[in-house]
């Protein structure tokens, strides 16, 4: 019996990478190639230069009709090349996660533990060099969890726990970071013992140690030379543990957080920056400059025209606030934050946009002068002198060759909170929202699809994209959209695409709006002509009864049909397709 039966998720073949049925396992070795990372770095830089040159060519040839076709091709090929070179550097974390079942099995056997390994988020991609850098810290953390965290089966049973401990590895994106969590349901860290050991090993003076709180005591385990293990074993106890984990992670600009509850378990969280990763960002304008705002933190956008600004933005003793659906949202003016010394135009002289951000549990509105398109940006690290400013997580080169600084929503919240003491309010507002969330009326996105009005539940809307009609592709007769590298079915019950196509004949390229929605665990797109508004829906009752009618809602005093997201047919799955292929093959032979 293996004490560390790997969980099904750890052994399952990667479902997101369908392999052609015909490719035999043996040919895999021939289809891949080892490439020096230095070469990839150089390619990346060269592609960057190519993009710039392309932009100049596009501008120079804009007037010449003979060149348009050629420069368009150049444009497409460059974009494709850039994307592929970037992809070449990315690797899924499963590359290092896949080594863990074996380590866990071997270790738990030698330590006499029973452990089940659970792995989540294996597809999360990280730049190759970063992945390499976190391999050792992660292995270390796993060994630690097994040795110090999860107790032997007898002790677990005595404590009323399942004799089999659970070790969880989880990778996910959070804003401009990838989070890798190693958590166990073991004994947790005994802070009193940590204090004792730290004093014993002379890492901290006894009188100082007695003043430390629980959180600060936990930080002591990151000191070099620290170990609570009673005896030095093969596995640990040599005092070169967590400090190495921390130094290695900090070397690549990451952070290590630890969270432990006695008897319940310990969670070690590695926050790894996406130094080279591609992140979706919204380009905003302020102080006559472009800035990139990571979309991970963005929850919605509000437009305030100049004539409404004085009424919409309210003040409490110098702290600007906005009433967002009845709740006060603290505001941060980006221009005032970045250029505190200079004179600023008052809000009612120009358009204002509020980007409602959620960063580390702080909810606030960032006021900017303008919005540009969302873009997939490549994060470039800043030099040390600019890093210490603290508000920027990097810089990027935009499609039009302009540079933009990438704003760090969490750091802005902290910075603004210090001067306006608004952070507490924000936390309170966020908590309130959760309480009242259930009671409030359902909100809908009101859209127009080829002349008819329809409603999409706002909670399910992830993104609204305006795309040229040419980006819609077809599988059989089903329209699909390549959305952030994944195929997404597009529902077009209203005939929006047809209408857009016929309307566009006169004035160039046809565009449609696709509302990207979450439905269960997949994404679906709804093709619409325009997005009209956001409104709270009222329930409708059938005359004379108290029975709620399904599928419709009352929006802005008009009965509006609600789009049924669950009704969107899923795309054919891998098995279905291969079945069809098999049938085809059989029919042929």
């Amino acid at each position: 019996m293996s004490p560390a039966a790997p969980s099904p998720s750890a052994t399952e073949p990667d479902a997101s990478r369908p392999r052609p049925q015909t490719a035999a396992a043996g040919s895999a070795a021939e289809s891949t190639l080892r490439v020096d990372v230095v070469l990839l770095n150089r390619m990346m830089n060269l592609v960057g230069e190519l993009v710039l040159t392309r932009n100049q060519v596009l501008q120079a040839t804009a007037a010449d009709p003979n060149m348009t076709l050629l420069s368009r091709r150049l444009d497409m090929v460059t974009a494709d090349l850039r994307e592929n070179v970037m992809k070449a550097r990315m690797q899924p974390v499963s590359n290092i996660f896949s080594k863990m079942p074996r380590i866990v099995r071997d270790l738990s056997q030698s330590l006499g533990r029973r452990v089940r390994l659970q792995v989540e988020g294996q597809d999360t991609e990280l730049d190759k060099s970063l992945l390499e850098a976190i391999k050792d810290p992660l292995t270390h953390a796993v060994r630690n969890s097994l040795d110090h965290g999860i107790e032997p089966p007898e002790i677990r049973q005595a404590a009323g726990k399942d004799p089999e401990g659970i070790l969880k590895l989880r990778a996910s994106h959070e804003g401009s970071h990838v989070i890798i969590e190693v958590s166990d349901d073991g004994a947790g860290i005994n802070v009193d013992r940590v204090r004792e050991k730290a004093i014993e090993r002379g890492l901290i003076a006894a009188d100082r140690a007695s003043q430390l709180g629980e959180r600060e005591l936990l930080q002591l385990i990151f000191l070099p030379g620290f170990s609570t293990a009673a005896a030095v074993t093969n596995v640990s106890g040599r005092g070169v543990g967590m400090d190495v984990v921390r130094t290695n992670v900090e070397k690549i600009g990451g952070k290590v957080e630890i969270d432990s509850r006695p008897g319940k378990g310990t969670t070690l969280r590695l926050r790894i920056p996406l130094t080279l990763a591609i992140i979706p960002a919204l380009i905003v304008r302020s102080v006559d400059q472009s800035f990139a705002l990571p979309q991970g933190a963005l929850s919605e956008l509000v437009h305030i025209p100049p004539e409404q600004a004085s009424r919409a933005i309210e003040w409490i003793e110098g702290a600007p606030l906005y009433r967002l659906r009845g709740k006060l949202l603290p505001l941060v003016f980006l221009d005032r934050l970045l250029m505190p010394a200079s004179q600023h135009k008052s809000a009612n002289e120009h358009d204002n946009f509020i980007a409602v951000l959620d960063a580390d549990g702080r909810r606030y509105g960032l006021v900017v002068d303008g919005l540009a398109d969302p873009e997939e940006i490549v994060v470039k690290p800043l030099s040390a002198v600019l890093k210490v400013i603290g508000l920027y997580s990097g810089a990027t080169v935009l499609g039009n060759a302009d540079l933009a600084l990438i704003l760090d929503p969490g750091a802005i919240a902290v910075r603004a909170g210090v001067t306006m003491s608004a952070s507490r309010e924000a936390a309170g507002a966020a908590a309130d929202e959760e309480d009242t969330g259930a009671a409030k009326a359902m909100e809908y996105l009101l859209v127009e699809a080829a002349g008819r009005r329809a409603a999409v539940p706002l909670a399910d809307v992830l993104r609204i994209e305006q795309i040229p009609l040419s980006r819609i592709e077809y599988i059989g007769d089903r329209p699909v959209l390549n959305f952030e590298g994944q195929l997404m079915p597009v529902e077009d019950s209203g005939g929006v695409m047809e209408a857009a196509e016929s309307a566009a004949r006169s004035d160039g390229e046809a565009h449609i709006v696709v509302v990207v929605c979450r439905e269960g665990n997949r994404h679906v797109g709804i093709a619409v002509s325009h997005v009209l508004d956001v409104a709270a829906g009222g329930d409708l009752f059938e005359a004379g009864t108290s029975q709620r009618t399904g599928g419709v809602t009352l929006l802005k005093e008009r009965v509006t049909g609600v789009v049924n997201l669950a009704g969107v047919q899923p795309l054919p799955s891998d098995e279905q397709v291969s079945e069809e292929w098999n049938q085809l093959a059989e029919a042929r032979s």
Partner: protein
Amino acid sequence: MSTATILHGKDQASAMAEVCSVRLAETWFGVPITHILEIIGATRPQPVPLAPEYVGGLVHYRGDVLTTVSLRHLLDMPPKEGTQAILVLESEGGCFGLLVDAVGEVLTVSSSDYEPNPSILDQRRKTLFAGAYKLKEKLLVMLDPERLDPLRLSQAS
């Protein structure tokens, strides 16, 4: 230690060095060409709000984002309207850009014409300059790329 002083110390007769001349308002400065990676013509760097004042902004350089140092600011001159040229310099801390008004030519100078910084120079300039070469018609004040590195400047200030 600057290239200029090394040359001076090594050979009393006449070691030759190549120096790129750059102009700032009416003054000419020299930068040893061994430290110059590239010269970028007219550019307008992207300003960085809240950055130290001597940072002239960011420019795009070979797929990377390069921090530039404004020599005008270091020498207490008013900022220049319009574009400036950039010398991409290499130092121990990595690459950085130096914003100058114009780039002149590459001059061959002899160590016999070299003089160290005069003692009446103020402290700030003493740390930025690395002596001067006496040319026929003017003095060429040498800049030391190591000391212009933004990281070094941030420690100094």
